[in-house]
């Protein structure tokens, strides 16, 4: 197994799927000649050509709308949004078209569509370019929303997304692109909608995903020094949301901390904690605690930005609180 970055894993997944299926193509801003604003599609244009790696105008509604239309004809577009913040310019097409067309016409339209979008804070990009609005999109039935935390999951889940006949929003965290991990070569596909335990433990259940996984892993190491063993469940997919490993873990630990990068209000933590109370109320030994972004638009200043974002120390404190 090769040890590669998350960027390489994502790139590999797309490359392999494009080699495998001529109906798979990429469209988006600067995906072609430039090689991708985050270099994820570097080399694709030269290898697959301009028809399959399509540079678009800076026009997100056109990108997502055209991706939807082409998917309706049987193509398998991968539409890249330069950042998830630009998804708001295509919000109507994502939630009013992609999420609804299959249902609203009695199953006539099938949309094998992937929207890849980069999100996340921590890069001093200011409030409009630093958001983690994953929960917003997970709100809508009809969409699948995935956000991986490891290179292996990124590859396996992206391949599953490309092969899926449902519209999938695949959210990548920009600060995870350089993270390295073991990634199986070749045809490695992970079913969508399966949460997984990334670190076994017995004292407290941490439920997280994407960037939150990295933060939680760091916190877990800190806590282990004091003999506290947390179990980390990685959701990987927000919709569908697989609560089984969460509940299983919670029944063992009776305590949970939920870690997400988005804002706390109406967020992933709100949803997961509610479900814990609904599904495992008799096992609750302490109130579930949420670690999330402070409720401000992210500031540019580095120190202020970091203080608004969840840190490993916040997770450590939360775990101590529930113990």
């Amino acid at each position, binding site marked *: 197994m090769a040890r590669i970055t998350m960027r390489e894993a994502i790139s590999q997944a797309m490359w392999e799927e494009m080699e495998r299926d001529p109906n798979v193509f990429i469209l988006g801003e600067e995906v072609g000649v430039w090689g991708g604003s985050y270099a994820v599609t570097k080399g694709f244009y030269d290898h697959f050509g301009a*028809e399959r790696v399509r540079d678009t*105008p800076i026009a997100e509604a056109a990108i997502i709308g055209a991706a939807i239309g082409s998917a*309706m004809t049987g*193509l398998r577009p991968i539409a890249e949004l330069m950042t998830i913040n630009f998804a708001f310019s295509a919000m109507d097409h994502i939630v009013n078209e992609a999420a609804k067309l299959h249902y609203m*016409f009695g199953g006539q339209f099938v949309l094998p569509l992937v929207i890849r979008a980069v999100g996340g804070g921590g890069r001093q990009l200011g409030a409009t370019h630093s958001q983690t609005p994953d929960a917003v999109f997970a709100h809508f039935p*009809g969409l699948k929303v995935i956000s991986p935390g490891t290179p292996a999951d990124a590859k396996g889940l992206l391949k599953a997304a490309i092969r899926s006949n449902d519209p999938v929003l695949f959210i990548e965290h920009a600060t995870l692109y350089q993270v390295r991990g073991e990634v199986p070569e070749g045809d490695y596909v992970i079913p969508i909608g399966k949460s997984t335990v990334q670190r076994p433990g017995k004292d407290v259940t941490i439920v997280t995903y994407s960037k939150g996984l990295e933060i939680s892993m760091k916190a877990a190491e800190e806590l282990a020094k004091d003999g506290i063993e947390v179990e980390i469940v990685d959701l990987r997919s927000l919709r569908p949301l697989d609560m089984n490993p969460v509940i299983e873990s919670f029944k063992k630990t009776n305590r949970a901390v939920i870690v997400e990068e988005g804002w706390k209000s109406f967020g992933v933590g709100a949803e997961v904690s509610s479900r814990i109370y609904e599904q495992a109320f008799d096992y609750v030994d302490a109130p579930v605690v949420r670690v999330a972004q402070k409720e401000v638009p992210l500031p540019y200043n580095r120190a202020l930005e970091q203080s608004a974002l969840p840190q490993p120390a916040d997770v450590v404190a939360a775990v101590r609180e529930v113990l």
Partner: protein
Amino acid sequence: MDKAKLLDLYYQMVLIRRLEESGAELYQAGKIGGFMHLYIGQEAVSTGLIAARQPQDRVITAYRDHGVAINCGIPANQVMAELMGKVTGISKGRGGSMHMADVTRNFWGGHAIVGAHLPLASGLALGDKYAGRDGVTICMFGEGATNIGYFHEALNLSKVWTLPVLWVCENNMYGMGTAVARASAVSEIQQKAEGYGMAHARVDGMDVMAVYTAAKKAIETVRNGSGPCMLEIMTYRFRGHSMGDPERYRQQAEVKRWEEHDPIGVFHAYLTGNKKATAKVLEEIEGRARLDVQKAVEFAEASPEPGEETLFDNVYVEEV
């Protein structure tokens, strides 16, 4: 056009008219819910347009879609059943008035967000171009949709990528209750095509033959690979924007003036005047349309409601 086809177009126009008149009554009686936008007055537009397409040509439109559905060949039964939300409706009672489609007849909806289907049309055309098929996507929209950003994004993309789309603006003079000049920088919508370097033409939309002739030419131009172009079809809706329209924005005299150019009357005069059909033959067709609507209502009334157990059908293709 041969005589049989001419008579069929007349039948389609009358069928749309009778079906919608019946729909309006059923709406008042509470048997049809939600929003319903009637096509009455505009029948010549989609009838002429769709008569000019080949089977491989896709049609996509906005929410004023009953006429388009009929012209694309969806049986009146399934249109009426969809209006009543029945399981036998073309969208299984999931879509209603604004969301009809039939993939088998190359009709791609029925879209209710103004202008949002224009980028989809670019995508449909991209699908054909990518696969090397020679289909043309015919995208219909009201003049009101030319003021929203999607219009610009979609037309620009279609030109940049040389996509086979025929953009068809149905200019019925009002976006809901707002007259063209109050909402659009230019009242002659075809001028907007200039900004995208597209060929364009303005057509009398009360004359089905004029629409057919212009559409035939435009569709084949697009098919020949010269890229997208635009038709602006001048028309008028005789009824309100939707069923709940107090019509405070226009004078009855104006409506009456347009009703003198009723597209069905205009076509009737053309057919009889050019000895294509006698008044008696046309009357028989009108009778047949009336009967078919009556049967459609009976069919829809007798059809079952979708079962509670089907509520979650088709949220996803795959099991989640």
